[in-house]
């Protein structure tokens, strides 16, 4: 009985934790959109995107340098 209750509590905590992480990510994304300068043009968004992708790829390459042989 106690084991069932513990399992149930654990499942609830897992779900809440999961929802918390997802909501945090949603919040970050909404903030990113909301904080965007309203005068930003399509070109600005595309330039910003390109910079993000380039940074991301650079980060991956740096990680690979730290782990040669992969």
């Amino acid at each position: 009985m106690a084991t069932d209750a513990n399992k149930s509590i654990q499942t609830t905590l897992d779900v809440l934790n999961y929802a918390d992480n997802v909501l945090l990510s949603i919040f970050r994304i909404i903030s990113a959109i909301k904080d965007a300068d309203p005068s930003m043009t399509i070109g600005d968004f595309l330039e910003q995107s390109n910079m993000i992708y380039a940074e991301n790829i650079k980060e991956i390459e740096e990680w690979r340098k730290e782990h040669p042989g992969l």
Partner: protein
Amino acid sequence: MKRNFVMSFLILSLVLCMTACSDNDLMKVSKSMAVYGTTLTEVQKNIIAAEKAGFLSVENTGKALEICERANVAGQQIVNVLNAVQKLDPDSRKKILALLVPISDSLDPTKIEFVLAIKDPVLKQKVEGGFILLRTTISSIIVISQVSGG
């Protein structure tokens, strides 16, 4: 699975609502591409953090980052497509869909073995949530590209 689906649906609705404020499809997709990039940054950081904390093997991290790299390259290619047009025409929509659909398939967290291998439940949920968010952002771009197409 059901929980993931409901969560994805909610996120998709939110992303669509947020992007619906802009005046045309090209603006919506451009904004979404920035969101997609930011989400990818989050996912990568969580994966690298998982490896550094010892919750993910170097081999699995390499596989995970390979998928992220492909997603980033696809993002760059889509931006190139968008940079070359003044508005989304059927041809550019087709190109965007051709780049996004395979990426979306490769980001399904329930099918990616390295996500399942993350030992820490919190980090696992973060990475899983990031991938779900990423797929949802892609889905919103796919929806925008399809809805007004033609």
